[in-house]
């Protein structure tokens, strides 16, 4: 099998698996919506306050939802041994791992983009910043999946990896949160956000190139 065929076969397989277990798609999405609903309840329903912190709320919730969904990335493959088979295949692990991460993002990251505008309207965000919000989510959530994959690959062999995973992954999410949240905030005030968007693109490209390397190394270590 050629490399590109193997790459698309892995994506296809993961997508089919996710469609068979629909809860895998629905859970992070519901979590995302629920957390955002909790904020107005916790801090009060003043429209100005909500509008001011809406970009932060949406991004922090997206971060948490992305982190919660990470466990699905390698867990079931690790348990049933197909991950081991993948590592044994003649194709470079980095490429196959990238395929898995892309499939994971299509299942857990992309749905966030679809509901985010609705929630933004709930929180009273100005209409002209919705486009930027979607753009930052489009550029930022794949980075969350890529960086998160490093954390999952390191902890997939552990029985209780959940708590430690957040400690590993969340500090590394900081740059994405800063630039994405800031871009949406600035766009709300009608300021140019080219710089933030360019940096997000740079981070995404860097993560796309670099992240599969430690993921592959960590998976080999976890399987050993």
């Amino acid at each position, binding site marked *: 099998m050629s490399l590109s065929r193997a790459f698309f076969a892995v994506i296809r397989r993961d997508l089919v698996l996710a469609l068979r277990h629909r809860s895998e798609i629905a859970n992070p999405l519901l979590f995302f919506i629920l957390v955002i609903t909790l904020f107005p309840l916790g801090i009060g329903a003043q429209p100005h306050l909500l509008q001011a912190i809406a970009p932060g709320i949406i991004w922090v919730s997206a971060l948490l939802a992305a982190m919660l969904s990470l466990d699905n990335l390698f867990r079931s493959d690790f348990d049933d041994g197909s991950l081991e088979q993948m590592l044994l295949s003649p194709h470079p692990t980095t490429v196959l791992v990238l395929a898995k991460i892309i499939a994971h993002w299509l299942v857990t990251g992309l749905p966030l983009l679809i509901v985010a505008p609705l929630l933004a309207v709930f929180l009273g965000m100005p209409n002209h910043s919705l486009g930027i919000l979607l753009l930052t989510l489009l550029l930022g959530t794949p980075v969350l999946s890529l960086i998160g994959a*490093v954390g999952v690959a*390191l*902890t997939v*062999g*552990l029985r*209780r*990896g959940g708590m*430690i995973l957040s*400690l*590993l992954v*969340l*500090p*590394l999410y*900081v*740059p994405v949160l*800063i*630039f994405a949240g*800031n871009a949406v905030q600035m766009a709300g005030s009608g300021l140019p956000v080219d710089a933030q968007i360019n*940096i997000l693109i740079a*981070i995404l490209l860097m993560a796309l190139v*670099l992240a599969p390397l*430690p993921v592959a*190394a*960590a998976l080999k*270590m*976890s399987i*050993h």
Partner: protein
Amino acid sequence: MFLIPDPVVRFFHRMASPPHFYAFTGRLMPWLVVIFLLVTAVGLYGGLYLAPADYQQGDSYRIIYIHVPSAWMSLFIYVVMAVAGAIGLIWRIKLAEIVAISSAPIGASFTFIALVTGSLWGKPMWGTWWVWDARLTSELILLFLYLGVIGLYGAIDDKRIASRAVAILALVGVVNIPIIHYSVEWWNTLHQGPTVTKMDKPSIHVSMLIPLLLMAVSFKFYYLIAMLQRARTELLLRERNAQWVKNMVSESK
């Protein structure tokens, strides 16, 4: 390798052998302690007694003799950890792995000390224990990165595997630290212009600078002592079934 003189290469080859490392660091330790005590005594005397009081901050500025070296060490140790981890990953040198993991708690402590001393200084100077200043925030995130390393090492039972996991994490972290640092800096400067927290780089007087540099050297030696001490115990623990450890224990009985 051909650029490095033979004795140096031989030194490193021998240092990679656990018994030799253990014996050598055991002999080195008293010297390190003596140098550390001397440098610390001179540095503290210079900093707390000889250096003049600051014309604005009075005596409270003297916390920099602890605070600044700690902050320097916090970054320095993370880099050492990542480099040692990379050496361990690439050449499978057990001792490099041990050095990497022995550095983590010390680095975390220095980060914590830098944060606490900064906070203690910030209360009288800025009027608040904590501000979301770029430096403070990136130091806090550095502390989380250290805790992640320590937590991951503790969570994996097989310590050989744990060391490799830690090395991978430290390398990922070391790539991220500059990005985090600059993003935090940018975040802050975008949010608010120069405030109390944004000081011009003070041109420090020589009588204050020399004790500061001495304290930086002293902290390096402290790190070396603490790290080697941890590495030696970790080595004994891992090699407890090796013949050289058994010989050593039966000799000392």
